[in-house]
């Protein structure tokens, strides 16, 4: 699992980890039931405080992206977990708002934007799970 932290852009480190894990899951590089590295190992690899990693894992768990099993280990959850759907919709809505604001400012029409979205989706490869 490759995570790249950039300490300079003002985004808190735990949030960067959260976002990148979400991206990895979204793009299929992390499949459901893949195991995430233990907190200490990831902390030593990324050279960040283990508490930060722990917080990221907790956020991911709250968002339903990962699941902590009894007996240890953090695993990617099934994509269709109903608990987190509302939360996921929230995140997506925010991103879409930002995207729409920018596209309006740049004078793209809504059809151009949708067209672009479809093209990028094809380029990203097949989607895991349904839809």
């Amino acid at each position: 699992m490759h995570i790249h932290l950039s300490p300079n852009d003002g985004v808190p480190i735990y949030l960067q980890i959260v976002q990148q894990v979400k991206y990895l899951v979204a793009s299929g590089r992390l499949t459901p039931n893949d195991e995430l590295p233990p907190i200490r190992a990831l902390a030593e690899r990324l050279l960040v405080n283990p508490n930060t990693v722990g917080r990221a894992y907790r956020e991911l768990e709250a968002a339903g992206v990962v699941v902590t099993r009894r007996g240890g280990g953090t695993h990617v959850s099934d994509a269709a977990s109903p608990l987190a759907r509302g939360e996921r919709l929230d995140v997506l809505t925010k991103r879409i708002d930002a995207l729409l604001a920018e596209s309006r400012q740049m004078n793209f029409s809504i059809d151009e934007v949708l067209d672009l979205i479809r093209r990028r989706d094809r380029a990203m490869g097949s989607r895991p799970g349904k839809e």
Partner: protein
Amino acid sequence: MNGDAAEKIIEIVGLTRRFGAKRALRDVSLTVPRGSVFGLVGPNGSGKTTLIKHVLGLLRAQTGSVRVFGRDPVRDPAGVLVRVGCLTEENDLPGWMRVDELIRYMRAFYPAWSDAYAEELRQAFALDPAAKVRTLSKGQRARAGLLVALAYRPDLLVLDEPSSGLDPLVRRDILAAIIRTITEDGRTVLFSSHLLEEVERVADHVAMIHQGRIVFDAPLDEIRATHRRLTLQFAEARPRPPELAGALAWEGAGREWTAVCAGQSGGLRAAAEAVGGRIVEEQDLRLDEIFLARAGAVPVASTKE
């Protein structure tokens, strides 16, 4: 983090230190809880090294008290220092010693020394045992110092600007040592640094000293949560920024002024509206931006009192 009262590894209360007429530390109080990575930041000459020297027992408290593991490091240097690992900026190891002699010498002092771990570190750091310390490069000397500070798994690791002047490889080794220390239960790290992005990565508590006084001392998350950069837009152009409680540093011109503010989000919003400004942008801040705003904001008081 421990729920119940975490043991205070370092407890400093009301510490003041004068060097002649100059006051290096003024009424400093600090607590380092067990298991934390405590970052100490501050401009040059603010008193960080002086504070760390008090923790190590190199300086005696003129007023107030310093307790490490509950003991006074001046009264009981042997009892305190045997559990402390230390890496300082100058890192003066005797130049005439060979690396293997250094290891053999140091291990006699620490009952908890682990030969296997020392050997593992020596190989990881690629230190030639036959080389004399004075023939090592600066980075290698830092690694040697790190080796003898880590090999006995000290309960408290104290680093005084360990990365200054070192290349990124050695800095990475030092950060890795800090993380590895903290992942083992019950061990604590206190370190001071100018490289704020490193502090931001590994520290969970940060204290800033400026001109001998503690400016803030809180968990890193809290610090980040209470400092924001606000951009205010006003109806008419202003030649000077408005008075805003909690604003540390202003910049801008005309109708838009940007401030680094300290305070809770809701309170800041209300205060901004009170001076007639509209918040158009709100940003999180990095630790070095907070530091710059804080260090610049404190007025330069006379150091002779």
